[in-house]
Every structure is written in structure tokens, then in C-alpha cells.
């Protein structure tokens, strides 16, 4: 399947011959896999690393989340220090973890901070180069050999202390009992391991890598960081009515004709009127009404009628009976038959119209899934039930729409049949953010469209 799609990508970019390119291939991918989430899931620490800890000085509980200093400390090189099993993830806005001091022991020489993979165990975080630690007994922040500075309050038994990396501001920050104590520039390079240390008898600390709710409200900090960026962005000004133009071209592109008419009418009657109709006599208006009709038929599941119209209006689209577009149409027809329970008819149709796709490279999977619908008494609940969702009709409708657009003799670039302006702008935005982050050691949060909707929910919930 992939072979076929990849090779078609090349074709699409190069030529525009008289027979329409089979843009349906682009949609085939969506049918079976949907769109995979591009979530930046780099792994987070989950527990303490018992392999490189300073064994002998500390005891690690079996859950690998609690440590206790079991010795009597004699000098500066017998610290009970332990790192997390993984470094802090970087592809996000903020990383954060917490410790709860169960027992401050004899001297309360507890520390929390970050170290690199080359950190020398048996030393406090912050005493060595490339490490940083907030110490409980004096409240100082240690940042490398001989570097210490007044930072925050001391902490002791029953306090909850947190350490975090704010990738947006490039800072390390620390909290005590849910309140930010302070922040310093993050000047350590490389993967940073959450690190905790105990250094006097009976000191006992429990670490929370997010398996339990934090005392500190991370969501608020994240929202603040996003708001800061938003405030910078909002200062920019846009060309007038550009949003209207982009919305309008989106409606044109997908053939949402009724919406387009209503939108145009509303724009003209606003005070002052927004005139964008005349200036954009674009190619997107091409075959608008026919595209609308085809979409409506497909959305209603009337595939035969859609095929009939296509034969009448754009025979060149359906003449290649072995194209991906043709496959999508015929699979949908089969799906609609199964949906209404016309199984006998479906079998007959399958034999006559789907079997021939079976041998074509890349098509087999979809044909197999489609025919498999017959195997289940309740196909909706089966592993191939996804085929019965409205989304599939939508994908077919978009594929047909793209094919019709590509028959426009004025089309110079087939990409424009596939992607509306809005999509191209959002891709550009995403790509810019990703590439910029790659220049920055992959640190920080990339843009993700679906989060735009999530964040608004949070905001209104907090408001």
C-alpha cells in the first residue's frame, strides 16, 4: 500500500496530464489508518534508578519511589543520591516532579534538583558542575562547584517540594508546598535527570513523578506561559478581512455551497459590509454546485446516485475502474449495503465490483476490511466497524471533491485540489514551530491544532 501511495506522490508533484491523476490514493491512507496522532510522547521518568544510586548509604523501597538514609554521615562523599530512571522529557512546555519529606532525619540535609548522566553519585545535586539543587537544610540553591545563592525557605518533615523545567522561559524552578519559590536560568545542557538526595540519618523522602496529583498546580503555570506567548502574538496585526477570505475559500474548496451563500449574504449585510466576494473570483468556485450535489449524495449514502452523476458530468473520473477513487466509491457502496442489511446484494456486488481490486497492490487491505463486514452479526461493534462511521463517507466525499477540482483546466498545481488554503497555512505554522524547536535541541512545545480546542475548554472552566 505504501509503495503505491509513495509513487503516486511523485506523480502528483510532477505532471498534470489529460487523464486525471488518481487523487483518491491520498485519501486511501486516511480510510484505514485515520490520521495518526503526532503527539510528542517522549517518555517521562516513572521511578528511581536503583542501578546507579549510591547504594550502601541509602535504602530504596521496592516501589522505587521512596528512599531512606540508613547510615551515619561522616563526610561530603557519602551522600545518598539517586536519579530518575529517565531524563526529563523535553518536547513540552514544562516538566515537573515533587518530593514529600516524610522524615527530615538528624540534619534535614535533603536536596532536590537536576543532574546530567555524568553526575557523580555520592554528592549533593548542585555541588558538582552541570547540576543544580535546592537544599532543605539551608534553603540555598547550589549550581556547581562553590556556587550557592540565597534562594528560598528551608524545608523539613512533611513539606512537599518540587523541581521543574520551564522550557518556554528556559528556566529551572522550584516550589514548596505548592507555591513557586524561585527560578533560575537553565544553563545546563543535555538530558537532565530529576535527582533527589538525603544525607543524614533517618532522612526519608518519597518522590512523585506524576503518578499522584501534585501539590503545585502545573496547569496554571502552563496556561500562564501560553498566555504570555499569546499576548506577544496578539500584538501583530492582520491584513483586513483575511480571516473572512480564508473561511470563504475553505467553503469553496469543499463545495459547502449553502454555507457559502449564507456567509456571503451575512458579510454583505454587516455594518460596515465586508466585501470579499468580487475580489476572489477564484478557481475554487469551479463546479461548486456539482460538487455540492455529489457531497450531499455521498453523505446520505446514496452512492449509486453519486456514481450516476459522476458518469454524466465527469466520466473521466470514473473511467479507470481500477483507480483508488473508484475503489473508494465501490467500497462505500458495499458498506452502505451492509448498513441497511442487504447482505445478499452486498455479496453479489462484492463479487462483481470489489474482487477485481483484490490483486492490486495497496488496495488489498481496504477490500479485505470491507468484505470482512459480512463476517459479523453486529458489524458496528466489529474490528472493521470503523468503516460504518460517518467519517468514511466524509473521506469519500472529499476524495470525489478533489477529483472534480482536478478536472478544472485552469488548475496548475494538483496540491491545490487536495488542500484548502486553511490547511496549507496550518501546515506551515506546524512546520515552522517544529523546525524552530529542532534548532533549540528539540526543547519546548510544538504547535498542535487539537490543543487549541482543549486549551479553550480549560480557560472557560477556570474563568
Amino acid at each position, binding site marked *: 500500500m505504501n509503495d503505491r501511495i509513495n509513487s503516486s506522490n511523485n506523480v502528483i508533484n510532477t505532471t498534470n496530464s489529460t487523464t486525471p491523476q488518481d487523487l483518491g490514493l491520498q485519501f486511501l491512507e486516511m480510510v484505514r489508518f485515520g490520521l495518526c496522532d503526532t503527539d510528542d510522547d517522549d517518555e517521562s521518568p516513572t521511578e528511581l534508578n536503583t542501578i546507579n544510586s549510591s547504594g550502601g548509604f541509602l535504602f530504596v523501597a521496592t516501589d522505587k519511589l521512596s528512599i531512606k538514609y540508613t547510615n551515619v554521615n561522616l563526610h561530603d562523599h557519602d551522600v545518598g543520591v539517586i536519579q530518575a530512571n529517565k531524563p526529563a522529557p523535553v518536547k513540552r512546555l514544562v516538566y515537573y516532579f515533587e518530593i514529600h519529606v516524610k522524615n527530615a532525619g538528624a540534619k534535614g540535609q535533603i536536596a532536590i534538583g537536576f543532574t546530567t548522566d555524568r553526575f557523580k553519585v555520592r554528592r549533593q545535586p548542585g555541588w558538582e558542575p552541570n547540576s543544580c539543587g535546592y537544599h532543605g537544610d539551608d534553603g540555598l540553591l547550589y549550581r556547581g562547584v562553590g556556587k550557592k545563592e540565597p534562594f528560598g525557605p528551608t524545608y523539613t518533615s512533611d513539606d512537599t517540594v518540587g523541581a521543574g523545567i520551564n522550557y518556554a522561559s528556559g528556566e529551572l524552578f522550584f516550589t514548596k508546598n505548592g507555591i513557586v519559590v524561585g527560578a533560575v536560568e537553565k544553563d545546563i545542557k543535555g538530558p537532565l535527570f530529576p535527582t533527589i538526595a538525603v544525607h543524614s540519618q533517618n532522612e526519608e523522602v518519597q518522590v512523585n513523578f506524576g503518578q499522584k496529583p501534585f501539590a503545585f498546580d502545573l496547569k496554571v503555570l502552563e496556561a500562564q506561559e501560553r498566555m504570555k506567548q499569546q499576548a506577544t*502574538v496578539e500584538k*501583530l496585526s492582520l491584513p483586513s478581512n*483575511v480571516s473572512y477570505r480564508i473561511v470563504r475559500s475553505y467553503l469553496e474548496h469543499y463545495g*459547502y455551497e449553502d454555507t457559502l451563500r449564507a456567509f456571503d449574504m*451575512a458579510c454583505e449585510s454587516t455594518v460596515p459590509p465586508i466585501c470579499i466576494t468580487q475580489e476572489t473570483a477564484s478557481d475554487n468556485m469551479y463546479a461548486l454546485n456539482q460538487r455540492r450535489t455529489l457531497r450531499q449524495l455521498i453523505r446520505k449514502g446514496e452512492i449509486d446516485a453519486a456514481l450516476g452523476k459522476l458518469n454524466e458530468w465527469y466520466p473521466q473520473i470514473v473511467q479507470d475502474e481500477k483507480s483508488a477513487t473508484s475503489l473508494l466509491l465501490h467500497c462505500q457502496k458495499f458498506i452502505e449495503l451492509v448498513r441497511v442489511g442487504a447482505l445478499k446484494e452486498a455479496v453479489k456486488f462484492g463479487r462483481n465490483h470489489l474482487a477485481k481490486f483484490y490483486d492490486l497492490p495497496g488496495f488489498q487491505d481496504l477490500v479485505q476490511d470491507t468484505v470482512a463486514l459480512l463476517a459479523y452479526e453486529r458489524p458496528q461493534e466489529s474490528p472493521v466497524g470503523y468503516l460504518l462511521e460517518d467519517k468514511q463517507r466524509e473521506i469519500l466525499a472529499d476524495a470525489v471533491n478533489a477529483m472534480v477540482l482536478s478536472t478544472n483546466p485552469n488548475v496548475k498545481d494538483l496540491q491545490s485540489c487536495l488542500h484548502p488554503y486553511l*490547511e*496549507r*497555512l496550518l501546515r506551515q505554522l506546524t512546520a515552522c514551530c517544529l523546525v524552530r524547536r529542532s534548532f533549540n535541541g528539540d526543547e519546548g512545545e510544538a504547535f498542535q491544532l487539537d490543543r487549541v480546542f482543549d486549551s479553550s475548554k480549560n480557560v472557560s472552566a477556570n474563568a
Partner: protein
Amino acid sequence: MSLFWIVIRQFAENEAMATSKKVITREEWEKKLNDVKIRKEDMNKLVMNFLVTEGYVDAAEKFRMESGAEPEIDLATITDRMAVKKAVQCGNVEDAIEKVNDLNPEILDTNPQLFFHLQQQRLIELIRNGKVEEALEFAQEELAPRGEENQSFLEELERTVALLAFEDVSNCPVRDLLDISQRLKTASEVNAAILTSQSHEKDPKLPSLLKMLMWAQDQLDEKAAYPRINDLSTAMLEDPPI
């Protein structure tokens, strides 16, 4: 090409070389773009959000039918909101205030600034219509007491009453108050307050995203030369300067 542009171009090239910016070719960039997957349902949501927030109730209804996208609030509330907005835009401020209170009396109760601006707009409309006596009475009875509570209200009140001092208002220093833009400003303030009262954001998301695109491109400019989109309304990719 004029000498000016040649110099400018040379300058730009030198600058690019001096900072040794990485150059990303069109081909490389297009590959990156192709790797980005944007879900159609998210784009539909964006468009629906725009239609709903801007108050295009008919278009939103049609879009729901044509695309299957669900609006984030009850479309009926848009109609009420737009009626209020329209009333202010047409100068029927009294009517607008009544409609807001029908919708949710808390909106004006909890928003003294908005209420003042509506009353101010009412005063402006009275003056516009030459109802001098009524305007004076309204200013003294309704607006002055509020001005006493708040210095900025008082200043705005004085500025508005100044309209009465000029025979030819079309040429006076406070003539902007009579401009259509003043009505639009007040109308959009009411609109935003109603949206907020419905736990809805007062601005659509699309313009923010477009600004974010401009910002992201500028940010990346500092690190690399790459194909930019300079004209948002055509989404045309332009080759990097080399």
C-alpha cells in the same frame, strides 16, 4: 531592477551569510509540510468557531448540515446576541439595553464599564438626533452620578457633553464620537460581554492562529532561510532568498 533593490538584496545576502543561517530548500520544506497532518474535523471546528463567534447564525446552521460539524453553543443564543449588536449598530441603544437584560440581567449588573458605554452611546444618539433638552436631562440624571464613581467615566462624559457646545459638530474636536466606528466599538463591547457570559471566548480562534503563523515564521527567520507564506490570503509558498 533599481540600484536601491540591488543594494538591499546584497545587504540581505551578506546578512544571511554573516549569521550563516541554515538554508532549507523548497523541496526539503515541502517534505516537512507533507509530514504534517491536519485533521479535517479540526479545520471544520475552526470554521464553525469563526461563524459562531462572529455571529453568522445562518451560515453556522448551514455549515452544521453540510459538514456535520457541531457548533460549540446553542445557535439560538447567536440570534439574540446579534439582535443586541445590531440594535447598537443602528443607534437603538435603549432597545439594546432591554435585550441584554432579557438575555441575562447579570451582564450589565456586573459590568459597570459596559453599562456606562451603552448609556454614553445613548447620549450620543440623542445629541445626533438634535434632542438637546432630552440629552441634557439624560446626562445629568443618568450619567453624571456614574461619573462621580469613576474618574475615567467622568472624563468620557465631559468629552461627550462637549458635542453640545459646537454648532457644527462635523468639524469639532470630539466629532469621532459621532462616527459610525463609535457605534461599532460599543456594539463589539456588548457582543464580547454576552459571549463571555455564555462561557464562550469573545474572539474567534482563526485570527489568532494566523497571527501565530506570522510570528512563528518570523521566529524561524532568525535561524533559517526557508520558503515563507507572505500572503496569507493565497497561502502561496515563496522561495527562500539565497
